[in-house]
């Protein structure tokens, strides 16, 4: 059977983006990418993905707007509170044994997860000795993440999540509210490096003790998932920790055997001692 037009157009558009802008979406899960691109083409006034391709190739501005539509997942602070309480109970005691710590938040988007981890580490007295690498493929969202500013109407949900995650203080201790926005404490910034990094095309850049990469892998196909998990394995120190999304799994990856379950219900794994 001949491929549908839209599937041909999708592939051509993704190739065009790769050739022109070196952003590689070729390993993304097709169904959600197609939905995002189709809804984006409407926003840019395009009837077809071919029209969108024309715009994307000739207007870098359109591409950067498109990139944001393609890469910003809905996130919230302390999403899945039990993930964070598991980190507190099962991972933090082991992290305490290291004199200095490095954490990698891969696919950090607008930073909600980064600040959640920074707050958790501060509450556990570990932030002072920690450096968090927060990476994403989208420079615009990295800027937003670095600013640490969120709409005030989202804070109630964040506060509730923080409390459920076993938060030791009030979330309001960590931000200042002004003009309908909550600005997170600048002191967090000293412990966070925001940086451009692609799980599809870049390699390992540091040795870390904890990788947190949640609800990013679901947007990848199995091959790209495998590549990303390989990077995490290589980046982690001996017996380092990996946290992924609550509905994500290692079982389709050849790297599954490099990890053991630490808190399976919350998708926290530990790298094995031996390869």
């Amino acid at each position, binding site marked *: 059977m001949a491929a549908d037009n839209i599937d041909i157009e999708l592939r051509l558009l993704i190739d065009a983006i790769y050739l022109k802008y070196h952003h590689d979406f070729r390993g993304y*899960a*097709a169904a*959600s990418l197609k939905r*995002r691109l189709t809804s984006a083409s409407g926003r840019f006034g395009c009837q077809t993905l071919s029209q969108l391709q024309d715009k994307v190739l000739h207007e870098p501005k359109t591409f950067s707007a498109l990139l944001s539509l393609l890469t910003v*997942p809905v996130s919230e602070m302390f999403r899945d509170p039990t993930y964070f309480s598991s980190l507190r109970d099962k991972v933090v005691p082991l992290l305490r044994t290291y004199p200095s710590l490095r954490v990698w938040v891969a696919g950090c988007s607008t930073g909600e997860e980064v600040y959640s981890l920074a707050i958790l580490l501060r509450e556990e007295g570990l932030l002072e000795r920690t450096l968090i690498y927060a990476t994403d493929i989208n420079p615009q969202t990295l800027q937003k993440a670095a600013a640490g500013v969120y709409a005030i109407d989202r804070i109630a949900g964040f506060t509730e999540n923080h409390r459920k995650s076993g938060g030791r203080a009030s979330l309001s201790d960590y931000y200042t509210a002004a003009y309908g926005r909550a600005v997170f404490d600048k002191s967090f910034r000293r412990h966070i490096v925001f940086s451009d990094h692609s799980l599809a095309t870049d390699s390992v850049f540091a040795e870390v003790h904890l990788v947190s990469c949640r609800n990013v*892998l679901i947007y990848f196909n199995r091959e790209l998932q495998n590549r990303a998990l390989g990077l995490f394995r290589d980046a982690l120190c001996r017996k380092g920790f990996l946290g992924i999304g609550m*509905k*994500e799994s290692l079982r389709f990856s050849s790297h599954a055997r490099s990890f053991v379950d630490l808190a399976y219900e919350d998708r926290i794994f530990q790298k094995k001692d031996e390869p």
Partner: protein
Amino acid sequence: MRVAEALQYRIDAIVIGASAGGVDALSVLLPALPASLRASVFIVLHLPRERPSLLPEIFARKCALRVKEAEDKELAAPGTVYFAPPDYHLLLDKGPQLALSIDELVHFSRPSIDVLFETAADIYAERLMGIILTGANEDGAKGLASVHRRGGVTIVQEPDSAQVPLMVLSALRQTPADFVLPLEQIAELLRTLASAEPAESPLCQRGK
């Protein structure tokens, strides 16, 4: 139910969407699925997003088929009922493979019926059956239209028999349904979808 008998050979997947009143409706439909069903069954039932779902456990007991929560990247197995997990969209990808996403809510819902139905229609085309049941939401109407457009079979619960008819009415406004039936008759139709040797059917689309 002659039409249904003719259909059975080409249905590889059934997608079901329900909202308010959906648990009761599914309690009538799912036990009717025959143990020999060849199709995969995917279900979106709107539920509170913040709680883990007990649906797979509840329905496993009432169902002759394997019932489980959908997992990202698993291959769709025949004769298996998959529930979308709370707070994730469920999509179908080539394989057919299941995929999850946390993209924005659709009709205030995640999982959304539209997302499941539209992506399933892309993958299964005319080998898909879409069923819209009771609910107080317009989710599913666009999705059922996609199923119809791609040549799939569309079934809508008869509005009078729905606990809350808004969802089925919205679906009927957008799509000419192949069947508009009360719940018991949809169950009856599902019962006839027992597997037979696909090769015996002239309607068979496989092995082309």
